Protein backbone atom coordinates (compact mmCIF):
# COMPACT_ATOMS: atom_id res chain seq x y z
CA UNK A 1 0.00 0.00 0.00
CA UNK A 2 2.13 2.82 -1.28
CA UNK A 3 -0.27 5.63 -1.97
CA UNK A 4 -1.98 7.23 0.97
CA UNK A 5 -5.42 7.33 -0.73
CA UNK A 6 -5.34 3.76 -2.03
CA UNK A 7 -8.23 1.96 -0.35
CA UNK A 8 -8.28 -1.37 -2.19
CA UNK A 9 -5.12 -3.06 -3.33
CA UNK A 10 -4.68 -6.42 -5.06
CA UNK A 11 -1.12 -7.69 -5.18
CA UNK A 12 -0.35 -10.45 -7.65
CA UNK A 13 -3.73 -12.07 -7.06
CA UNK A 14 -4.46 -15.38 -8.75
CA UNK A 15 -7.58 -17.51 -8.63
CA UNK A 16 -7.74 -21.07 -9.87
CA UNK A 17 -10.93 -23.08 -9.81
CA UNK A 18 -10.27 -26.71 -8.95
CA UNK A 19 -11.24 -28.92 -11.85
CA UNK A 20 -10.89 -31.22 -13.26
CA UNK A 21 -9.48 -29.64 -15.26
CA UNK A 22 -8.28 -26.71 -13.11
CA UNK A 23 -9.15 -23.32 -14.59
CA UNK A 24 -7.11 -20.23 -13.85
CA UNK A 25 -9.65 -17.40 -13.83
CA UNK A 26 -7.34 -14.65 -12.57
CA UNK A 27 -3.61 -14.64 -13.18
CA UNK A 28 -1.33 -12.49 -11.02
CA UNK A 29 -3.49 -9.38 -11.16
CA UNK A 30 -2.23 -6.31 -9.31
CA UNK A 31 -4.48 -3.27 -9.17
CA UNK A 32 -5.06 -0.39 -6.82
CA UNK A 33 -8.29 1.48 -6.35
CA UNK A 34 -8.16 4.99 -4.96
CA UNK A 35 -10.59 6.47 -2.52
CA UNK A 36 -13.79 7.86 -4.18
CA UNK A 37 -12.72 6.44 -7.54
CA UNK A 38 -15.30 5.50 -10.19
CA UNK A 39 -13.85 2.46 -11.90
CA UNK A 40 -15.17 0.23 -14.66
CA UNK A 41 -14.04 -3.34 -15.23
CA UNK A 42 -14.48 -4.44 -18.81
CA UNK A 43 -13.57 -7.51 -20.79
CA UNK A 44 -14.91 -10.37 -22.84
CA UNK A 45 -17.18 -13.02 -21.33
CA UNK A 46 -15.07 -15.48 -19.35
CA UNK A 47 -12.22 -13.02 -18.92
CA UNK A 48 -12.54 -13.15 -15.12
CA UNK A 49 -14.43 -9.89 -14.43
CA UNK A 50 -16.94 -11.35 -11.99
CA UNK A 51 -14.27 -13.42 -10.26
CA UNK A 52 -12.18 -10.28 -9.80
CA UNK A 53 -15.15 -8.32 -8.42
CA UNK A 54 -16.03 -11.16 -6.04
CA UNK A 55 -12.45 -11.25 -4.80
CA UNK A 56 -12.47 -7.48 -4.23
CA UNK A 57 -15.83 -7.85 -2.46
CA UNK A 58 -14.52 -10.69 -0.25
CA UNK A 59 -17.15 -13.10 -1.58
CA UNK A 60 -14.41 -15.30 -2.98
CA UNK A 61 -10.98 -16.28 -1.74
CA UNK A 62 -7.71 -16.20 -3.67
CA UNK A 63 -5.38 -18.98 -4.73
CA UNK A 64 -2.41 -16.69 -4.46
CA UNK A 65 -1.50 -13.04 -3.74
CA UNK A 66 -2.86 -10.51 -1.28
CA UNK A 67 -6.01 -8.38 -1.07
CA UNK A 68 -5.84 -5.29 1.09
CA UNK A 69 -8.90 -3.27 2.06
CA UNK A 70 -8.24 -0.08 4.00
CA UNK A 71 -4.74 -1.39 4.59
CA UNK A 72 -5.88 -4.70 6.11
CA UNK A 73 -4.69 -7.98 4.60
CA UNK A 74 -8.04 -9.72 4.10
CA UNK A 75 -6.47 -13.03 3.09
CA UNK A 76 -5.57 -13.54 6.74
CA UNK A 77 -9.11 -12.93 8.04
CA UNK A 78 -11.49 -15.64 9.23
CA UNK A 79 -14.82 -16.30 7.51
CA UNK A 80 -16.70 -14.45 10.26
CA UNK A 81 -14.35 -11.47 10.03
CA UNK A 82 -14.86 -11.35 6.27
CA UNK A 83 -18.64 -11.39 6.80
CA UNK A 84 -18.32 -8.47 9.20
CA UNK A 85 -16.19 -6.52 6.74
CA UNK A 86 -18.65 -7.18 3.90
CA UNK A 87 -21.55 -6.02 6.02
CA UNK A 88 -19.82 -2.84 7.14
CA UNK A 89 -17.85 -1.65 4.13
CA UNK A 90 -19.09 -3.23 0.94
CA UNK A 91 -22.40 -2.88 -0.88
CA UNK A 92 -23.15 -5.31 -3.71
CA UNK A 93 -25.39 -4.78 -6.72
CA UNK A 94 -26.04 -7.78 -8.95
CA UNK A 95 -27.14 -8.00 -12.57
CA UNK A 96 -30.23 -10.07 -11.67
CA UNK A 97 -31.12 -7.81 -8.71
CA UNK A 98 -31.41 -10.78 -6.32
CA UNK A 99 -34.28 -9.33 -4.31
CA UNK A 100 -36.06 -11.71 -1.94
CA UNK A 101 -39.38 -12.36 -3.69
CA UNK A 102 -41.51 -12.64 -0.54
CA UNK A 103 -40.44 -9.29 0.90
CA UNK A 104 -41.64 -5.82 -0.09
CA UNK A 105 -39.23 -3.23 -1.50
CA UNK A 106 -38.95 -1.65 1.95
CA UNK A 107 -38.33 -5.00 3.67
CA UNK A 108 -35.76 -5.98 1.03
CA UNK A 109 -33.83 -2.79 1.65
CA UNK A 110 -34.15 -3.12 5.44
CA UNK A 111 -32.71 -6.63 5.14
CA UNK A 112 -29.41 -4.94 4.27
CA UNK A 113 -29.07 -3.86 7.91
CA UNK A 114 -30.26 -7.14 9.43
CA UNK A 115 -26.81 -8.48 10.13
CA UNK A 116 -25.46 -5.17 11.46
CA UNK A 117 -27.35 -5.49 14.74
CA UNK A 118 -29.86 -2.71 13.93
CA UNK A 119 -33.33 -3.32 15.38
CA UNK A 120 -36.35 -3.70 13.10
CA UNK A 121 -37.64 -0.17 13.67
CA UNK A 122 -34.22 1.33 12.92
CA UNK A 123 -33.86 -0.82 9.82
CA UNK A 124 -37.21 0.26 8.41
CA UNK A 125 -36.46 3.96 9.11
CA UNK A 126 -33.11 3.78 7.31
CA UNK A 127 -34.63 1.78 4.45
CA UNK A 128 -37.35 4.40 4.00
CA UNK A 129 -34.74 7.17 3.73
CA UNK A 130 -32.67 5.30 1.15
CA UNK A 131 -35.67 4.32 -0.94
CA UNK A 132 -36.59 8.00 -1.11
CA UNK A 133 -33.04 8.74 -2.20
CA UNK A 134 -33.42 6.40 -5.21
CA UNK A 135 -36.87 7.80 -6.01
CA UNK A 136 -38.98 4.82 -4.91
CA UNK A 137 -40.90 6.33 -2.00
CA UNK A 138 -44.19 5.40 -3.71
CA UNK A 139 -43.18 1.75 -4.23
CA UNK A 140 -42.14 0.78 -0.73
CA UNK A 141 -44.96 -1.68 -0.11
CA UNK A 142 -44.63 -3.41 -3.47
CA UNK A 143 -43.25 -6.91 -3.95
CA UNK A 144 -40.39 -7.30 -6.46
CA UNK A 145 -42.72 -8.93 -9.00
CA UNK A 146 -44.82 -5.76 -8.96
CA UNK A 147 -41.86 -3.59 -9.97
CA UNK A 148 -40.18 -3.00 -13.34
CA UNK A 149 -36.61 -4.16 -13.93
CA UNK A 150 -35.27 -0.62 -13.44
CA UNK A 151 -37.23 -0.21 -10.21
CA UNK A 152 -36.01 -3.57 -8.93
CA UNK A 153 -32.44 -2.57 -9.60
CA UNK A 154 -33.00 0.70 -7.74
CA UNK A 155 -34.30 -1.33 -4.78
CA UNK A 156 -31.12 -3.45 -5.01
CA UNK A 157 -29.02 -0.26 -5.03
CA UNK A 158 -30.95 0.97 -1.99
CA UNK A 159 -30.25 -2.34 -0.23
CA UNK A 160 -26.54 -1.86 -0.89
CA UNK A 161 -26.68 1.79 0.20
CA UNK A 162 -28.58 1.26 3.43
CA UNK A 163 -25.46 -0.29 4.97
CA UNK A 164 -23.69 3.03 4.25
CA UNK A 165 -20.77 1.18 2.68
CA UNK A 166 -17.51 2.83 1.61
CA UNK A 167 -17.35 0.69 -1.52
CA UNK A 168 -20.06 -0.19 -3.97
CA UNK A 169 -19.40 -3.16 -6.23
CA UNK A 170 -21.80 -3.62 -9.13
CA UNK A 171 -21.75 -6.64 -11.42
CA UNK A 172 -23.30 -5.52 -14.70
CA UNK A 173 -26.19 -3.76 -12.96
CA UNK A 174 -27.53 -2.48 -16.28
CA UNK A 175 -27.21 -5.77 -18.11
CA UNK A 176 -30.87 -6.73 -17.73
CA UNK A 177 -32.28 -3.24 -18.29
CA UNK A 178 -33.39 -1.18 -21.27
CA UNK A 179 -31.21 1.75 -22.35
CA UNK A 180 -33.15 4.39 -20.44
CA UNK A 181 -33.24 2.42 -17.20
CA UNK A 182 -29.58 1.52 -17.62
CA UNK A 183 -28.58 5.15 -17.94
CA UNK A 184 -30.70 6.01 -14.92
CA UNK A 185 -28.87 3.40 -12.82
CA UNK A 186 -25.54 4.70 -14.08
CA UNK A 187 -26.62 8.24 -13.12
CA UNK A 188 -27.49 7.08 -9.60
CA UNK A 189 -24.11 5.35 -9.22
CA UNK A 190 -22.33 8.47 -10.46
CA UNK A 191 -24.26 10.53 -7.90
CA UNK A 192 -23.20 8.14 -5.15
CA UNK A 193 -19.61 8.43 -6.29
CA UNK A 194 -19.85 12.20 -6.11
CA UNK A 195 -21.17 11.86 -2.57
CA UNK A 196 -17.95 10.04 -1.63
CA UNK A 197 -18.52 6.35 -2.40
CA UNK A 198 -15.90 4.35 -4.24
CA UNK A 199 -17.72 2.57 -7.08
CA UNK A 200 -16.38 -0.41 -9.05
CA UNK A 201 -18.67 -1.66 -11.78
CA UNK A 202 -18.46 -4.39 -14.38
CA UNK A 203 -19.92 -3.40 -17.71
CA UNK A 204 -20.07 -4.62 -21.27
CA UNK A 205 -21.49 -1.33 -22.44
CA UNK A 206 -18.85 0.84 -24.11
CA UNK A 207 -21.09 3.90 -23.83
CA UNK A 208 -21.35 3.42 -20.09
CA UNK A 209 -17.61 2.76 -19.75
CA UNK A 210 -16.88 6.27 -20.96
CA UNK A 211 -18.54 7.72 -17.89
CA UNK A 212 -15.92 6.22 -15.52
CA UNK A 213 -12.71 7.80 -14.20
CA UNK A 214 -10.76 4.72 -15.16
CA UNK A 215 -11.25 1.42 -16.92
CA UNK A 216 -9.60 -1.89 -16.06
CA UNK A 217 -9.61 -4.32 -18.95
CA UNK A 218 -9.39 -8.03 -18.27
CA UNK A 219 -8.22 -10.46 -20.90
CA UNK A 220 -7.91 -14.15 -20.09
CA UNK A 221 -7.59 -13.40 -16.40
CA UNK A 222 -4.94 -10.73 -16.78
CA UNK A 223 -5.55 -7.07 -16.09
CA UNK A 224 -4.56 -4.22 -18.36
CA UNK A 225 -4.82 -0.87 -16.66
Amino acid at each position, binding site marked *: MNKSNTVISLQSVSKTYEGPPPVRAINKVSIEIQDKEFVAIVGESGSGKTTLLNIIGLLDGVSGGKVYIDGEDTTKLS*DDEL*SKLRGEKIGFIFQSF*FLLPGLTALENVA*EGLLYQGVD*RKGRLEEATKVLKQVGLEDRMGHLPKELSGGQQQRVAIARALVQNPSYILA*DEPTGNLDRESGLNILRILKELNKEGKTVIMITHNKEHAKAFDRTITLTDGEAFL
Partner: protein
Amino acid sequence: MKKKLSLLDIYSVAVYGIKSRKGRSIMTSIGIGIGIAAIVAVIGISASGKADLIATLESLGTNLIKASPTSGFFGTQDDLPEGVLGMVERIGPVEEVTSTSQTNLLVRRSNFISELEGGGISVIVTNPELLDVVGGSLVEGRFIETGLSNLPVATLGSVTAKRLGINNLDIATKILINNEWFGVIGIVEKLSIHPDLDRSVFIGYSVAKELFDIDSEPSTIYLRANPTYVEDVVDVLAPTMNPENPDQVEVSRPSDALEAQQAAEDAFTSLLLGLGSVALLVGGVAIANVMVMSVLERRMEIGVRRSIGATRSEIRTQFLLESVLLAGFGGLVGVLLGAGITIIYTRYADIIFSIPVWQVFGAIVLALVIGALAGLYPAIRASKVQPAEAVRS
Protein backbone atom coordinates in the same frame (compact mmCIF):
# COMPACT_ATOMS: atom_id res chain seq x y z
CA MET B 1 -16.91 -8.38 17.23
CA LYS B 2 -19.90 -8.51 14.92
CA LYS B 3 -23.22 -7.95 16.66
CA LYS B 4 -25.33 -11.06 16.88
CA LEU B 5 -28.84 -11.33 15.47
CA SER B 6 -31.56 -10.96 18.07
CA LEU B 7 -33.84 -13.93 18.69
CA LEU B 8 -36.72 -12.00 17.11
CA ASP B 9 -34.66 -11.37 13.97
CA ILE B 10 -33.61 -15.04 13.70
CA TYR B 11 -37.26 -16.02 14.12
CA SER B 12 -38.46 -13.56 11.47
CA VAL B 13 -35.81 -14.74 8.97
CA ALA B 14 -36.82 -18.39 9.56
CA VAL B 15 -40.50 -17.54 9.24
CA TYR B 16 -39.78 -15.80 5.93
CA GLY B 17 -38.43 -19.09 4.56
CA ILE B 18 -41.54 -20.96 5.69
CA LYS B 19 -44.04 -18.32 4.56
CA SER B 20 -42.53 -17.99 1.12
CA ARG B 21 -43.34 -21.69 0.50
CA LYS B 22 -46.61 -22.05 2.36
CA GLY B 23 -48.02 -25.07 0.55
CA ARG B 24 -44.85 -27.07 0.80
CA SER B 25 -44.35 -26.08 4.42
CA ILE B 26 -47.82 -27.29 5.39
CA MET B 27 -47.36 -30.56 3.52
CA THR B 28 -44.01 -31.06 5.22
CA SER B 29 -45.48 -30.44 8.65
CA ILE B 30 -48.27 -32.94 8.06
CA GLY B 31 -45.83 -35.87 8.33
CA ILE B 32 -44.71 -34.83 11.79
CA GLY B 33 -48.31 -33.91 12.67
CA ILE B 34 -49.58 -37.40 11.87
CA GLY B 35 -46.82 -39.03 13.90
CA ILE B 36 -47.41 -36.82 16.93
CA ALA B 37 -51.20 -37.18 16.61
CA ALA B 38 -50.83 -40.97 16.58
CA ILE B 39 -48.61 -40.93 19.64
CA VAL B 40 -50.77 -38.47 21.59
CA ALA B 41 -53.96 -40.34 20.70
CA VAL B 42 -52.48 -43.72 21.65
CA ILE B 43 -51.12 -42.43 24.95
CA GLY B 44 -54.28 -40.39 25.56
CA ILE B 45 -56.59 -43.33 24.99
CA SER B 46 -54.38 -45.54 27.12
CA ALA B 47 -54.23 -42.93 29.90
CA SER B 48 -58.00 -42.46 29.71
CA GLY B 49 -58.47 -46.22 29.98
CA LYS B 50 -56.19 -46.33 33.00
CA ALA B 51 -57.94 -43.36 34.62
CA ASP B 52 -61.24 -45.10 34.09
CA LEU B 53 -59.86 -48.34 35.52
CA ILE B 54 -58.55 -46.55 38.60
CA ALA B 55 -61.93 -44.88 39.05
CA THR B 56 -63.65 -48.25 38.68
CA LEU B 57 -61.29 -49.94 41.11
CA GLU B 58 -61.70 -47.10 43.58
CA SER B 59 -65.46 -47.38 43.43
CA LEU B 60 -65.53 -51.16 43.57
CA GLY B 61 -62.52 -51.74 45.77
CA THR B 62 -59.76 -54.27 45.28
CA ASN B 63 -60.74 -56.34 48.33
CA LEU B 64 -63.48 -58.26 46.56
CA ILE B 65 -62.71 -61.96 46.20
CA LYS B 66 -64.60 -64.53 44.19
CA ALA B 67 -64.38 -68.30 44.75
CA SER B 68 -65.97 -71.01 42.67
CA PRO B 69 -65.35 -74.67 41.88
CA THR B 70 -62.78 -75.32 39.17
CA SER B 71 -64.07 -76.51 35.85
CA GLY B 72 -63.79 -80.21 35.17
CA PHE B 73 -62.25 -81.83 32.13
CA PHE B 74 -65.47 -81.41 30.15
CA GLY B 75 -66.13 -77.90 31.41
CA THR B 76 -68.48 -79.07 34.13
CA GLN B 77 -68.25 -77.55 37.59
CA ASP B 78 -68.33 -79.45 40.87
CA ASP B 79 -70.43 -78.18 43.73
CA LEU B 80 -68.82 -76.51 46.68
CA PRO B 81 -68.95 -78.55 49.90
CA GLU B 82 -71.92 -78.12 52.22
CA GLY B 83 -71.70 -75.41 54.87
CA VAL B 84 -69.01 -73.59 52.92
CA LEU B 85 -70.52 -70.17 53.61
CA GLY B 86 -70.14 -70.65 57.35
CA MET B 87 -66.54 -71.77 56.94
CA VAL B 88 -65.68 -68.68 54.94
CA GLU B 89 -67.43 -66.38 57.40
CA ARG B 90 -65.14 -67.70 60.13
CA ILE B 91 -61.97 -66.44 58.36
CA GLY B 92 -60.99 -63.46 60.51
CA PRO B 93 -60.45 -60.65 57.96
CA VAL B 94 -63.59 -61.52 55.96
CA GLU B 95 -65.99 -58.62 56.37
CA GLU B 96 -68.91 -59.59 54.16
CA VAL B 97 -69.78 -62.78 52.36
CA THR B 98 -72.57 -63.95 50.11
CA SER B 99 -73.18 -66.70 47.63
CA THR B 100 -74.96 -67.44 44.40
CA SER B 101 -76.08 -70.64 42.77
CA GLN B 102 -75.82 -71.11 39.05
CA THR B 103 -78.82 -72.80 37.40
CA ASN B 104 -79.62 -74.21 33.99
CA LEU B 105 -82.97 -72.41 33.81
CA LEU B 106 -84.03 -70.93 30.50
CA VAL B 107 -85.02 -67.27 30.22
CA ARG B 108 -87.35 -65.95 27.54
CA ARG B 109 -89.20 -62.68 27.00
CA SER B 110 -92.45 -64.55 26.39
CA ASN B 111 -93.78 -67.92 25.35
CA PHE B 112 -93.81 -66.73 21.73
CA ILE B 113 -90.03 -67.05 21.77
CA SER B 114 -88.75 -70.49 20.97
CA GLU B 115 -86.88 -72.28 23.75
CA LEU B 116 -84.00 -72.62 21.32
CA GLU B 117 -83.61 -68.86 21.14
CA GLY B 118 -83.42 -68.20 24.85
CA GLY B 119 -79.75 -69.03 25.45
CA GLY B 120 -76.98 -66.79 26.68
CA ILE B 121 -78.72 -65.57 29.80
CA SER B 122 -78.04 -67.28 33.13
CA VAL B 123 -80.44 -67.49 36.03
CA ILE B 124 -78.59 -66.97 39.29
CA VAL B 125 -80.17 -67.74 42.63
CA THR B 126 -78.89 -65.19 45.11
CA ASN B 127 -79.04 -63.68 48.57
CA PRO B 128 -80.06 -60.05 49.07
CA GLU B 129 -76.47 -59.12 50.08
CA LEU B 130 -74.98 -59.86 46.64
CA LEU B 131 -75.42 -56.33 45.29
CA ASP B 132 -73.69 -54.75 48.28
CA VAL B 133 -70.83 -57.24 48.30
CA VAL B 134 -70.01 -56.81 44.60
CA GLY B 135 -70.41 -53.03 44.89
CA GLY B 136 -73.31 -52.84 42.45
CA SER B 137 -76.20 -50.42 42.19
CA LEU B 138 -79.57 -50.33 40.48
CA VAL B 139 -80.54 -48.41 37.39
CA GLU B 140 -84.03 -48.59 38.77
CA GLY B 141 -86.33 -50.78 40.84
CA ARG B 142 -85.24 -53.20 43.57
CA PHE B 143 -82.92 -56.13 44.07
CA ILE B 144 -84.08 -59.50 45.50
CA GLU B 145 -84.45 -58.15 49.00
CA THR B 146 -85.34 -60.05 52.14
CA GLY B 147 -89.04 -60.75 51.95
CA LEU B 148 -89.04 -61.02 48.16
CA SER B 149 -87.07 -64.24 48.10
CA ASN B 150 -90.15 -66.40 47.98
CA LEU B 151 -91.94 -64.40 45.28
CA PRO B 152 -91.73 -64.99 41.53
CA VAL B 153 -89.86 -61.77 40.89
CA ALA B 154 -86.54 -61.18 39.17
CA THR B 155 -83.92 -58.47 38.90
CA LEU B 156 -82.03 -58.22 35.62
CA GLY B 157 -78.35 -57.68 34.90
CA SER B 158 -77.64 -54.77 32.55
CA VAL B 159 -76.84 -56.89 29.50
CA THR B 160 -79.81 -59.15 30.15
CA ALA B 161 -82.15 -56.14 30.26
CA LYS B 162 -80.86 -54.96 26.91
CA ARG B 163 -81.15 -58.40 25.36
CA LEU B 164 -84.72 -58.79 26.54
CA GLY B 165 -85.55 -55.29 25.32
CA ILE B 166 -86.45 -54.04 28.78
CA ASN B 167 -85.09 -50.50 29.03
CA ASN B 168 -87.19 -49.35 31.99
CA LEU B 169 -89.86 -50.50 34.36
CA ASP B 170 -92.44 -47.84 33.59
CA ILE B 171 -94.96 -50.56 32.92
CA ALA B 172 -95.19 -53.91 34.69
CA THR B 173 -93.04 -56.38 32.83
CA LYS B 174 -92.80 -60.15 33.08
CA ILE B 175 -90.34 -62.66 31.79
CA LEU B 176 -90.56 -66.39 31.44
CA ILE B 177 -88.13 -68.57 33.40
CA ASN B 178 -88.57 -72.11 32.19
CA ASN B 179 -92.36 -72.07 32.10
CA GLU B 180 -92.97 -69.81 35.07
CA TRP B 181 -93.74 -66.08 34.78
CA PHE B 182 -91.60 -63.76 36.88
CA GLY B 183 -92.27 -60.06 37.40
CA VAL B 184 -89.25 -57.83 36.71
CA ILE B 185 -88.65 -55.62 39.76
CA GLY B 186 -85.26 -54.08 39.00
CA ILE B 187 -82.35 -53.56 36.60
CA VAL B 188 -78.78 -53.59 37.87
CA GLU B 189 -76.25 -50.98 36.70
CA LYS B 190 -73.41 -52.36 34.56
CA LEU B 191 -70.87 -54.16 36.78
CA SER B 192 -67.52 -53.61 35.05
CA ILE B 193 -65.72 -56.37 36.90
CA HIS B 194 -68.50 -58.94 36.77
CA PRO B 195 -69.50 -59.43 33.16
CA ASP B 196 -71.05 -62.81 34.08
CA LEU B 197 -73.47 -61.07 36.48
CA ASP B 198 -74.36 -58.50 33.81
CA ARG B 199 -75.65 -61.38 31.68
CA SER B 200 -77.77 -62.86 34.47
CA VAL B 201 -81.28 -62.84 35.92
CA PHE B 202 -81.39 -62.87 39.72
CA ILE B 203 -84.09 -64.71 41.66
CA GLY B 204 -84.47 -65.64 45.35
CA TYR B 205 -83.56 -68.98 46.95
CA SER B 206 -87.03 -69.74 48.28
CA VAL B 207 -88.81 -69.32 44.97
CA ALA B 208 -86.07 -71.31 43.21
CA LYS B 209 -86.62 -74.17 45.62
CA GLU B 210 -90.38 -73.99 45.39
CA LEU B 211 -90.77 -73.69 41.61
CA PHE B 212 -87.66 -75.42 40.28
CA ASP B 213 -86.58 -77.58 43.21
CA ILE B 214 -83.14 -75.98 43.32
CA ASP B 215 -81.10 -76.52 46.48
CA SER B 216 -79.48 -73.67 48.31
CA GLU B 217 -75.98 -75.03 47.81
CA PRO B 218 -73.81 -72.20 46.52
CA SER B 219 -71.75 -72.44 43.34
CA THR B 220 -69.96 -69.14 43.78
CA ILE B 221 -68.88 -67.24 46.87
CA TYR B 222 -68.33 -63.46 46.84
CA LEU B 223 -66.64 -61.89 49.82
CA ARG B 224 -65.07 -58.66 50.99
CA ALA B 225 -61.93 -58.90 53.10
CA ASN B 226 -60.11 -56.36 55.20
CA PRO B 227 -57.96 -54.58 52.54
CA THR B 228 -54.79 -55.14 54.60
CA TYR B 229 -55.22 -58.91 54.57
CA VAL B 230 -56.61 -59.53 51.09
CA GLU B 231 -53.59 -61.62 50.02
CA ASP B 232 -53.77 -63.67 53.21
CA VAL B 233 -57.45 -64.39 52.71
CA VAL B 234 -56.80 -65.40 49.10
CA ASP B 235 -54.14 -67.82 50.36
CA VAL B 236 -56.36 -69.56 52.92
CA LEU B 237 -59.66 -69.40 51.08
CA ALA B 238 -59.35 -72.54 48.96
CA PRO B 239 -58.07 -74.78 51.81
CA THR B 240 -60.81 -73.41 54.05
CA MET B 241 -63.57 -74.03 51.54
CA ASN B 242 -62.43 -77.47 50.52
CA PRO B 243 -59.76 -78.82 52.93
CA GLU B 244 -59.57 -82.17 51.15
CA ASN B 245 -59.19 -80.81 47.63
CA PRO B 246 -58.20 -77.14 47.74
CA ASP B 247 -57.15 -77.35 44.10
CA GLN B 248 -60.82 -77.81 43.19
CA VAL B 249 -61.55 -74.25 44.30
CA GLU B 250 -60.71 -71.38 42.02
CA VAL B 251 -60.07 -68.14 43.87
CA SER B 252 -59.83 -64.85 41.96
CA ARG B 253 -59.91 -61.15 42.50
CA PRO B 254 -62.01 -59.50 39.77
CA SER B 255 -59.79 -56.43 40.02
CA ASP B 256 -56.86 -58.63 38.93
CA ALA B 257 -58.73 -59.47 35.75
CA LEU B 258 -59.20 -55.78 35.03
CA GLU B 259 -55.56 -55.08 35.71
CA ALA B 260 -54.52 -57.98 33.48
CA GLN B 261 -56.79 -56.63 30.78
CA GLN B 262 -55.15 -53.24 31.19
CA ALA B 263 -51.68 -54.85 30.99
CA ALA B 264 -52.69 -56.51 27.72
CA GLU B 265 -53.90 -53.15 26.44
CA ASP B 266 -50.60 -51.61 27.53
CA ALA B 267 -48.73 -54.10 25.34
CA PHE B 268 -50.96 -53.14 22.43
CA THR B 269 -50.37 -49.49 23.26
CA SER B 270 -46.60 -50.07 23.02
CA LEU B 271 -47.08 -51.54 19.57
CA LEU B 272 -49.14 -48.56 18.43
CA LEU B 273 -46.58 -46.20 19.94
CA GLY B 274 -43.94 -47.97 17.89
CA LEU B 275 -46.00 -47.37 14.75
CA GLY B 276 -46.47 -43.73 15.72
CA SER B 277 -42.71 -43.42 16.14
CA VAL B 278 -42.18 -44.79 12.66
CA ALA B 279 -44.58 -42.14 11.33
CA LEU B 280 -42.55 -39.52 13.19
CA LEU B 281 -39.32 -40.84 11.74
CA VAL B 282 -40.79 -40.69 8.23
CA GLY B 283 -41.98 -37.14 8.97
CA GLY B 284 -38.46 -36.22 10.07
CA VAL B 285 -36.94 -37.64 6.89
CA ALA B 286 -39.52 -35.69 4.86
CA ILE B 287 -38.48 -32.48 6.59
CA ALA B 288 -34.80 -33.23 5.97
CA ASN B 289 -35.59 -33.86 2.28
CA VAL B 290 -37.54 -30.67 1.86
CA MET B 291 -34.88 -28.64 3.67
CA VAL B 292 -32.12 -30.06 1.43
CA MET B 293 -34.20 -29.10 -1.62
CA SER B 294 -34.79 -25.71 -0.09
CA VAL B 295 -31.05 -25.13 0.32
CA LEU B 296 -30.52 -25.93 -3.37
CA GLU B 297 -33.36 -23.65 -4.46
CA ARG B 298 -32.36 -20.78 -2.23
CA ARG B 299 -28.71 -20.47 -3.11
CA MET B 300 -29.39 -16.94 -4.34
CA GLU B 301 -30.91 -15.98 -1.00
CA ILE B 302 -27.98 -17.52 0.85
CA GLY B 303 -25.56 -15.65 -1.41
CA VAL B 304 -27.36 -12.34 -0.89
CA ARG B 305 -27.45 -12.81 2.88
CA ARG B 306 -23.76 -13.64 2.93
CA SER B 307 -23.01 -10.56 0.78
CA ILE B 308 -24.83 -8.29 3.25
CA GLY B 309 -22.89 -9.65 6.18
CA ALA B 310 -24.46 -12.93 7.33
CA THR B 311 -21.99 -15.35 8.87
CA ARG B 312 -22.05 -19.09 8.28
CA SER B 313 -23.47 -19.69 11.74
CA GLU B 314 -26.30 -17.21 11.08
CA ILE B 315 -27.21 -19.04 7.86
CA ARG B 316 -26.98 -22.35 9.71
CA THR B 317 -29.22 -21.07 12.51
CA GLN B 318 -31.77 -19.75 10.00
CA PHE B 319 -32.19 -23.11 8.26
CA LEU B 320 -32.09 -25.06 11.49
CA LEU B 321 -34.78 -22.88 13.01
CA GLU B 322 -36.91 -23.23 9.89
CA SER B 323 -36.78 -26.98 10.27
CA VAL B 324 -37.55 -26.78 13.99
CA LEU B 325 -40.49 -24.43 13.36
CA LEU B 326 -41.89 -26.71 10.65
CA ALA B 327 -41.70 -29.67 13.01
CA GLY B 328 -43.00 -27.60 15.93
CA PHE B 329 -46.02 -26.51 13.89
CA GLY B 330 -46.62 -30.12 12.88
CA GLY B 331 -46.23 -31.17 16.51
CA LEU B 332 -48.73 -28.60 17.71
CA VAL B 333 -51.29 -29.64 15.11
CA GLY B 334 -50.54 -33.27 15.98
CA VAL B 335 -51.17 -32.67 19.69
CA LEU B 336 -54.52 -31.00 18.95
CA LEU B 337 -55.48 -33.77 16.53
CA GLY B 338 -54.41 -36.49 18.99
CA ALA B 339 -56.32 -34.82 21.82
CA GLY B 340 -59.37 -34.55 19.55
CA ILE B 341 -59.18 -38.23 18.67
CA THR B 342 -58.87 -39.08 22.38
CA ILE B 343 -61.91 -36.93 23.24
CA ILE B 344 -64.00 -38.57 20.52
CA TYR B 345 -62.89 -42.05 21.60
CA THR B 346 -63.54 -41.46 25.30
CA ARG B 347 -67.00 -40.11 24.56
CA TYR B 348 -67.74 -43.05 22.31
CA ALA B 349 -66.42 -45.58 24.85
CA ASP B 350 -67.95 -43.68 27.76
CA ILE B 351 -64.74 -43.55 29.76
CA ILE B 352 -62.96 -40.74 31.59
CA PHE B 353 -60.92 -38.36 29.37
CA SER B 354 -57.34 -38.03 30.52
CA ILE B 355 -54.19 -36.76 28.80
CA PRO B 356 -51.21 -36.11 31.05
CA VAL B 357 -49.79 -32.59 30.60
CA TRP B 358 -46.25 -33.99 30.48
CA GLN B 359 -47.33 -35.98 27.47
CA VAL B 360 -48.51 -32.92 25.53
CA PHE B 361 -45.34 -31.09 26.49
CA GLY B 362 -43.23 -34.14 25.68
CA ALA B 363 -44.85 -34.58 22.27
CA ILE B 364 -44.08 -31.00 21.28
CA VAL B 365 -40.50 -31.30 22.57
CA LEU B 366 -40.15 -34.55 20.63
CA ALA B 367 -41.34 -32.82 17.44
CA LEU B 368 -38.86 -29.99 18.01
CA VAL B 369 -36.00 -32.42 18.58
CA ILE B 370 -36.91 -34.31 15.41
CA GLY B 371 -37.06 -31.00 13.54
CA ALA B 372 -33.63 -30.06 14.85
CA LEU B 373 -32.13 -33.43 13.90
CA ALA B 374 -33.78 -33.35 10.48
CA GLY B 375 -32.61 -29.78 9.87
CA LEU B 376 -29.04 -30.25 11.02
CA TYR B 377 -27.58 -31.62 7.80
CA PRO B 378 -29.41 -29.18 5.46
CA ALA B 379 -28.44 -26.27 7.74
CA ILE B 380 -24.78 -27.25 7.69
CA ARG B 381 -24.99 -27.62 3.94
CA ALA B 382 -26.55 -24.16 3.61
CA SER B 383 -23.80 -22.62 5.71
CA LYS B 384 -21.15 -24.15 3.47
CA VAL B 385 -22.54 -22.62 0.28
CA GLN B 386 -19.80 -20.42 -1.14
CA PRO B 387 -21.18 -16.88 -1.46
CA ALA B 388 -19.39 -16.25 -4.77
CA GLU B 389 -20.93 -19.38 -6.31
CA ALA B 390 -24.36 -18.54 -4.91
CA VAL B 391 -24.50 -15.06 -6.47
CA ARG B 392 -23.10 -16.12 -9.84
CA SER B 393 -26.01 -15.28 -12.10
